[in-house]
């Protein structure tokens, strides 16, 4: 299976991603090898509000990295309906020019009920692209509001895409999305006010620390439709790569991965437990609080 991934064939990778996304139990046995097979591809998150041009920018970034001879993997997440579980995955529309390029692999993912701007399985899908030798691996989130910051836990470098009309200086100092940016791209740079928005962002972000070890993120102006400013953005992302791999950042990312895996495994074991239905019903009937129910299910799992 993993040998097939390295051949550059698309079909085995596409099939594996379907199994990963669907939570296929057979994937579990592959995971140690999958993670061990990683080539260390640079995980780059692209996030920002709906309509800020994330997909078009990703397409321009693919173009620039292809010029530099790199094989690019892309995961693009769009929201699932909380009511029907259906989804419109439309990020591909902006990226079709790369569809036939064998050195670009692009996959759309529905968030499938997960909040935070990603799907629960996105990080495993990213590991699969890494095992297949793609570098960089771009992860485009659901259009984000102010606090969909999950991407910063997954990606090594997080690019927040804003538009010139993003708001005043108070928007720039709010906690949340902008705070997790390693790089900010003010996209739609051909619109009036782009340079002024970039200046305001630089001024506001240079005054405060947030996470103590950080320098203020670079703020770049891009026009994704013409690729203006895109080579400079790629340079900035590349330059961030070594910072992203500091022992401290690597530890933070590892801790969040272990937490995710833990939550996932615990939920799976608990749901497979014979006591699951009764516990859920007891919580629904207000006979039991959710924490005690969870604790009992965990204890039951440990006794096996």
């Amino acid at each position: 299976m993993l040998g097939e991934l390295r051949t550059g064939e698309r079909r085995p990778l596409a099939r594996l991603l379907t199994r990963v996304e669907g939570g296929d139990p057979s994937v579990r046995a592959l995971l140690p090898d999958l993670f061990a097979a990683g080539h260390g591809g640079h995980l780059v998150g692209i996030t920002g509000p709906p309509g800020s041009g994330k997909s078009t920018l990703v397409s321009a970034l693919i173009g620039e990295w292809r010029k530099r001879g790199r094989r690019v993997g892309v995961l693009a997440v769009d929201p699932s309906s909380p009511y029907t579980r259906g989804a419109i995955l439309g990020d591909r529309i902006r990226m079709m020019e790369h569809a036939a390029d064998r050195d670009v692999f692009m996959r759309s993912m529905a968030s499938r009920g997960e909040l935070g701007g990603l799907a629960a399985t996105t990080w495993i899908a990213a590991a699969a692209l890494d095992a297949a030798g793609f570098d960089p691996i771009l992860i485009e989130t659901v259009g984000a509001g102010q606090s969909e910051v999950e991407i910063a836990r997954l990606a090594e470098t997080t690019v927040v895409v804003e538009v010139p009309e993003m708001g005043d200086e108070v928007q720039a100092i709010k906690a949340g999305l902008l705070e997790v940016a390693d790089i900010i791209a003010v996209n739609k740079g051909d619109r009036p006010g782009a340079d002024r928005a970039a200046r305001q962002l630089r001024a506001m972000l240079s005054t405060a620390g947030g996470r103590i070890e950080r320098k203020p993120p670079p703020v770049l102006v891009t026009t994704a439709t013409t690729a203006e400013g895109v080579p400079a953005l790629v340079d900035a992302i590349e330059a961030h790569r070594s910072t992203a791999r500091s022992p401290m950042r690597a530890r933070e990312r590892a801790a969040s991965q272990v937490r995710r895996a833990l939550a996932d495994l615990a939920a799976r074991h608990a749901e497979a437990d014979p006591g699951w239905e009764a516990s859920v019903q007891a919580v629904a009937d207000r006979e039991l609080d959710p924490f005690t129910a969870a604790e009992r299910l965990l204890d039951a799992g440990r006794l096996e």
Partner: protein
Amino acid sequence: MMNDRSTDAPIRVLIAKPGLDGHDRGAKVLARGLRDEGFEVIYTGLRQTPEMIADAAEQEDVDVVGLSILSGAHMALLPRTVELLRQRGMDDVLVAAGGIIPDADVTKLKAAGVAEIFGPGTSIGQIARYFRENARRS
């Protein structure tokens, strides 16, 4: 139900407009309707070549490819798309078409591997039911 991620994943459908045909209202209405029916719909936009559609379908590992065509070029573009999908090892993907297609061509397209053709007046419910009953499940 939110978060029941291990049970029956939604059917994935690629909706594409092959060829030089700028009319995508129908494709968008269908994409939206299928979303409401619980499908994951990958919409690739206008003016796609059969190669682009097959390459996208391969990477997305979809269960269904839905081709919307109103230009009259269906005899050139649809069999070619089916052929390219098969070349990429997607033997079991369900290919369906929608648009203005004369009855005389329907038989030929079905012989070329297009499983079903939906003409004007088809309801979204009918298409959703057809996909549910006929899509391969991975």
